């Protein structure tokens, strides 16, 4: 037996198994990580049942009535659980979301599993999502619509839902007026102010010019007045109705319909109802603005900001990366200098991204942006236009960060184009430019696309440089909107990666924000994995193609 074990060790097999184990651990970690994010992120939108129960914090205490969703559970040692009066060496704790932050101050609490008694899932338990103070958990008691009272009855819930739907339509209209129409007027007003200031600075402010500006202003002011009248009317409708809900503890609260996003009774839903609710919530997450300091609602501005920033970056990085690669590979004399440049370019891909952020802030924002403000936007000084972090500088910084990726990928593609193709083209009398444009570059197109996709994937995930050059936690307006010149390169923007950092670490209510952070992270991971897999696939098919070209 002893000899056998010694032989076994001498054969090296256990070491091979240990090596295999290292691979397995890595694979388990990757898959586990993605699974963890997926489960926690996607699970959030599923409407969990609402439990109503009596809770005894100690066996002899008088119970309190609680109502909420079970969010998490853990088993801990007695001493970590604070040595409760219940038996057992390990104690199970549950995290429940009880909502009603306006009443109890907290919307999450840890409770001991052993203290839960008389648990039930009543069908009329309702969750109300509000625009402030988070969720409300309770039972619907009555409604008051413009003075008309409705109490318990068969169609109370239907009427309740109908009112919410109607009110939400009005609310959307209000938001449209406030954000798009009045926002547009404000934007125009500001432009007129800057125009006048510019005229004054250049000393061209003649009376008729000022008069023309004033006329425009008056027109805008009238428009504005008509909108505020409409707003008052809509708010009047919205504020006329309220309802009364009873919490688990028996307290009755009056809530205005104006503050309600939606209400639902998860315990009464069947699987299909829950599924359609899930889809609705998921859609809200992808398409809506954030609410309540980014802890509720959607992440649309962050998605929009990320995509816009990456697109502007791509527009800048592709031509320059390709030109640099073509120059290095096709035009420059090959020698120690090009080799040195190649090493430098390769190495730059390994320079920490925060260094690019520092460079972007110093050079682009303060130096270039400051100079642009002096030259082109003197009328808005001292408020900076481009001399402050913004969309343009963020895109430029990331373009510099990712340009090595595009150069390396394109150069690889160029080096794979067989010499015979180039020589054939030249022998037929084409100039070098024509050879490049008509034969070599089309053959490298997919290599360039690979480089671009990898650059986009890297840019979409970077956060550290963006924190310095333009990302904010809440951007009041998108970088692209209906006000001329439509694309606002000087605006700040939101970004998925930064959103994760900000909501996860700077939020006042981390527990409530956590599921949304997981969901955002999942979205980002999926996006980046798809981009990378596409790049890998294109690269592989490219290699096959050249192998065929070389052999024929």
């Amino acid at each position: 037996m002893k000899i056998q074990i010694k032989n076994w060790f001498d054969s090296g097999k256990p070491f091979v198994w240990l090596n295999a184990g290292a691979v397995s651990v890595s694979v388990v970690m990757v898959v586990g990580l993605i699974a963890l994010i997926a489960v926690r992120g996607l699970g959030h939108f599923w409407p969990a049942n609402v439990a109503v129960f009596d809770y005894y914090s100690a066996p002899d205490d008088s119970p309190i009535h609680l109502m909420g969703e079970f969010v998490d559970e853990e088993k801990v040692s007695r001493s970590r659980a604070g040595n409760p009066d219940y038996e057992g060496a390990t104690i199970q704790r549950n995290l429940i979301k009880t909502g009603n932050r306006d009443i109890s101050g907290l919307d999450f609490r840890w409770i001991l599993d052993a203290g839960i008694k008389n648990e039930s899932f009543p069908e009329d338990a309702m969750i109300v999502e509000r625009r402030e103070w988070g969720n409300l958990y309770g039972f619907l008691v009555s409604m008051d619509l413009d003075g008309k009272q409705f109490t318990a009855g068969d169609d109370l819930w239907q009427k309740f839902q109908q009112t919410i739907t109607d009110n939400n339509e009005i609310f959307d209209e209000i938001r449209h007026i406030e954000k798009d129409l009045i926002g547009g007027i404000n934007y125009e007003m500001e432009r007129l102010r800057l125009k006048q200031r510019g005229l004054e600075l250049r000393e061209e402010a003649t009376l008729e010019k000022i008069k023309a500006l004033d006329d425009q202003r008056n027109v805008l002011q009238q428009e504005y007045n008509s909108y505020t009248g409409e707003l008052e009317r809509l708010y009047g409708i919205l504020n006329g109705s309220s309802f009364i809900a009873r919490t688990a503890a028996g307290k009755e609260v009056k809530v205005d319909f104006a503050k309600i996003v939606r209400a639902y009774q998860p315990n009464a839903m069947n699987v299909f109802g829950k599924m359609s609710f899930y889809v609705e919530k998921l859609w809200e997450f992808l398409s809506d603005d954030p609410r309540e300091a980014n802890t509720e609602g959607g992440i649309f501005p962050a998605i929009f900001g990320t995509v816009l920033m990456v697109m502007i970056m791509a527009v800048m990085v592709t031509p320059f990366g390709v030109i640099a690669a073509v120059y290095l590979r096709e035009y420059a004399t090959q020698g120690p200098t090009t080799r040195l440049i190649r090493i430098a370019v390769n190495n730059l891909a390994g320079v920490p991204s925060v260094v690019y952020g520092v460079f972007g802030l110093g050079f682009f924002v303060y130096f270039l942006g400051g100079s642009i403000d002096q030259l082109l936007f003197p009328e808005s000084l001292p408020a900076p236009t481009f001399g402050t972090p913004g969309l343009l500088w963020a895109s430029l910084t990331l373009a510099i960060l990712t340009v090595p990726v595009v150069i390396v990928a394109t150069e690889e593609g160029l080096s794979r184009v067989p010499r015979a193709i180039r020589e054939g083209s030249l022998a037929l009398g084409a100039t070098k430019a024509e050879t490049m444009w008509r034969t070599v570059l089309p053959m490298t197109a997919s290599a360039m696309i690979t480089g671009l996709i990898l650059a986009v994937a890297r840019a979409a995930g970077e956060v550290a440089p963006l924190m310095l050059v333009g990302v904010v936690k809440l951007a009041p307006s998108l970088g692209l909107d209906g006000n001329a010149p439509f694309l606002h390169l000087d605006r700040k923007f939101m970004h998925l990666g930064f959103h994760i950092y900000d909501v996860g670490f700077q939020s006042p209510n981390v527990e409530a924000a956590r599921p949304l952070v997981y969901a955002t992270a999942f979205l980002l991971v999926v996006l980046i994995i798809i981009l990378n897999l596409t790049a890998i696939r294109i690269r592989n098919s490219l290699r096959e193609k050249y192998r065929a070209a070389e052999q024929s």
Partner: protein
Amino acid sequence: MDTDNITIDTLRHDFNSPASLNYRKWRHIKDVVTRYLMALGGISVIFAIVLIAFYLLYVVIPMFKSAEIERIAAYSVPGGSNSDTLFYAMEEQREVGLRVTDQGQAIFFSTANGEIREIFDLPIPAGTAITTIANGDFTQRMIGLGLSDGSALLFQHNYKVTFPEDVRLITPEIYYPFGNETIPLNVLGDPIEHLSIQYDGEQATLLAHGTDANIKLLNLTKEESMLSDEIEILRENSLITLDTVSVVSLRADIEQRELYVADETGNIYYYDISNKTNPRLVQKVTAVDAGISITAIEFLAGGISLLVGDASGQIAQWFPVRDAENNYTLQKIRSFNKQKSAITAIAPEYSRKGFVAIDESGEMGIYHTTAHRTVLLEQIDNHALNAISVAPRVNAALVENENKEVQFWHLHNEHPEISWQSIWGKVWYESRDKPEYIWQSSSASSDFEPKFSLTPLAYGTFKAAFYAMMFAIPLAILGAMFTAYFMAPKMRQVVKPTIEIMEALPTVILGFLAGLWLAPFVELHLPGMFIMMLLVPLSILLAAVAWEFVPGNVRNMVAEGWEAALLIPVIIIAVIISVHVSSPIENMFFGGNMPLWLSREMGITYDQRNSMVVGFAMGFAVIPTIFSISEDAIYSVPKHLTTGSLALGATSWQTMVRVVLLTASPGIFSAIMIGLGRAVGETMIVVMATGNTAIMDMSIFEGFRAMSANIAVEMPETEVDSTHYRILFLGALVLFAVTFFLNTIAEIVRQRLRNKYSSL
């Protein structure tokens, strides 16, 4: 014949027709233009990339430049040279200067040309002469005159700034906070030989020395009367008796808690005067070498440090240091020996810890104490210099020489607080009991001493990298060995991209998981984590042994090279077991709470966001980098080497260790270098998964503050072109240099390896 000719003619194309020529020319132009455009574009992109390094340098370099001074004007003392100057001051805009003379005049003048703006005759009683002058903290602009009848006069010089017709107009004023009557100090009516005053807006402390060995202390406190608007002045006084009569200087600090008395033999008496009725001698210390006298004494901004200039030209910084028993003793912290003649005056800066000193040979020195740096030393005159005043913004100085000539200098001294010593070395900061490495870049108070030591940040960076590499290197390299050499090709096709996808995962996600999920998880299952580190390798070995006992026909069902797939369930089970036994083990050995046990029984602090968590998360981020490069290196070891080794009878493991690994080792080395480069520069993980406190401790249970995280956190809040801004750029430059260096080494090693492979 004819028909033949015709066909040939029509077929023949005239290559030299004007249209063809033009077209060819156009093509040629296009070719040339493209060539130049490409060159221009290519070179400019490469230039832009190179620009990064140069721009960082461009921002950093001004920090290390010495100060510059420029003489703007020189003129005879304003107000006539028949009186002697007692004191100079300047207002914030460096436009108006003040000269106080021994004839009792306060003369305000334009600094640019010496023209007199206004003269105030101070209310000195007839028949008395001014015997001495004292100034309080410069920020309070308070001056006290000691008179020959034993009384003192206190006044403030104030400046009102108005903008009539958009032009700045500065109007100087004299204000008497305690009335324009003199305050009697010495009962006996002796002349005041030495005076010290301090005023903080509410209370003033006057200390006067006459001809005997006594110092009279008088404390005046303004108190608003409860009933009327009248201000009542409360008085407290006491007497300090020295063991010497040869006092040179008296100085009380702005807080009016400490008094320093210098005597002719170079002793400094350190008194605690926080109790105004009962002053206490704390210490008597000899401040200068024997035979040398103290010639100038002044407080540094903030009133904690005392600057002592002596006849040999040395200037020393002293401050009270607290010992283990909470007793304070005055200690010499550092000294400057650059000037060679007796120091005549020292002018401290208003908000920084710098000062300007002049001496008898006409030299002026600009210094900074924290950085222990002589920013400038220049012979500005051939005559001895008598008096100096520095503008509040430290951008100008007034200097008077022995010929009663006033010189007005502009100073450019932006970053005196930076020196090699202050960035990388231990520095003894004010109110600290020993020299330390500290990073503390900002504070609420204005006379705060910034602590710009990059050492704790560099330490944090390498601590993070160290733990990350501890976790990543074994996993990545062992994994690469298996994947490249033993794994079935089909499985490799899946595994390699899977692990490489990890590289593209945004680090913000890893950081967020580490901070919000892993850190609480590790804290809750701390014993389980250590069990896991043992149990996982052990279970792999056990599985290997078990596999030997599996019947042959089952074993043959699994093709060779799929061991890794078999191990996945084993590892998952081992992890689950470790987590589940964590709580019972904690109950058994650690009193139910291991972090608490660590701090209580072992004295080890446990932070929830600690180095172990960062090690896991950042290790996770660098595994794919190391894995992918070393896998490539191992995979491309020429096949004839391995087949040769196997043919000679070596087992595959022997071949792996003795042949493959040895050949590929440069590649593995470069993989580790690149991984290290990534770990050093990683930002989001360290921002999110540590507490970001700049401590220097290798403990795995404590956090740190890394250079990159520091930049990301502090950069958005700094003022452009301030020292803090530039030092963050220096941090970025250091990161750039380190990663560039690591990557270059890796790249060169890889190039060599590639050449070696192709020659094998």
